[in-house]
């Protein structure tokens, strides 16, 4: 028993344990996702997060201790965004043909995301700080956190809301687009990337490379547009 607690003390001070468990939770979640035939409802991020939160709470481990290990995975988000240049380059012909629908859809989508989130939260009596943290929820996390900071929201709450939005978008996106009869891969990906940033993009890459490419473009430009729109809208109201 003594030896076990010694090992626990050693492991809980090293990044190895939580890095391994982060990867293991994802492998478990992903194999469940595959077993359920890639059903969008079996979202791998939601399942992996649920496993990890349960583990952290059961072992009374702080998020900071967890993140000391998980940061190595988190870090790869940067190069992964850069890597979106490859599908963009490979599908540039299709992208060029869709410049007009992309520009119009992006503008409409970015405005809808901001206005509808504020309207619903305000109507249901959310705290002003919560509303401000909600505003950039469709945008990729680093940009969203910057926007939240600037307008008086809580950046780390925004990060959590961004991920929740991503999970919702990845879960309902494909069935919703099926219901609307949207078959065009470019339109499907672009809608998911605009509404649900990187997680919508991850889901789109599961549908097709074209969908993923358009989702990646939408994610990048929606971040850019929302960063400009939000301060503008707030100065008007």
């Amino acid at each position, binding site marked *: 028993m003594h030896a076990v607690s010694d090992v626990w003390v050693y492991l809980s001070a090293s990044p190895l344990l939580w890095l391994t468990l982060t990867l293991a939770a994802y492998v478990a979640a992903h194999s469940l996702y595959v077993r359920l035939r890639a059903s969008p409802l079996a979202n791998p991020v939601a399942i992996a997060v649920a496993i990890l939160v349960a583990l952290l709470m059961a072992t009374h481990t702080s998020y900071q201790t967890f993140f000391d290990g998980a940061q190595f995975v988190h870090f790869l988000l940067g190069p992964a965004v850069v890597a979106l240049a490859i599908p963009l380059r490979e599908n540039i012909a299709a992208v060029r043909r869709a410049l007009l629908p992309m520009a119009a859809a992006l503008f409409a989508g970015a405005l809808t995301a901001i206005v509808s989130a504020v309207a619903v939260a305000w109507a*249901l009596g959310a705290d002003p700080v919560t509303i401000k943290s909600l505003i950039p929820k469709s945008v990729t996390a680093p940009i969203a956190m910057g926007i939240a900071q600037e307008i008086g929201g809580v950046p780390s709450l925004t990060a959590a809301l961004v*991920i929740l939005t991503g999970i919702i978008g990845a879960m309902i996106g494909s069935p919703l687009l099926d219901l609307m009869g949207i078959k*065009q891969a470019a*339109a499907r990906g672009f*809608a998911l990337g605009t509404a*649900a940033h990187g997680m919508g993009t991850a889901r789109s890459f599961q549908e097709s490379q074209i969908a993923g490419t358009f989702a990646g473009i939408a994610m990048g430009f929606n971040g850019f547009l929302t960063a400009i729109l939000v301060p503008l809208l707030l100065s008007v109201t």
Partner: protein
Amino acid sequence: MIAAFVALLGCQLIGEVLVHLAGLPFPGPVLGMLLLFVFLTFRPEIPRPLRVASYTLLDHLSLLFVPAGTGIMLHFGRIRTEWLPIIAALLVSTILTIMVTAAVFRLLSPGDEKSET
């Protein structure tokens, strides 16, 4: 493979430096993506290792959101007291955004491209 990572991280690094120097409102990696894209347009084809490394990362993009997503545990208190406005706002807004974006995109797409590309 290592050269591919140097290319990806190098573009991110240049992107971060430029964003900080110029005070741009978006993150370094997004600018890094545009830089890599511009570099690639000058090449006849994409180097194979770079292609493999990039698609390996993109195929597992979901994994990379797990650490930040677990941070939701820090906000259980606020989410518990305001769960209704938060969940309703996220659900309604995400559904509307997907519908509006897809509808506008379809409306303005050239007619013969409506089917699978």
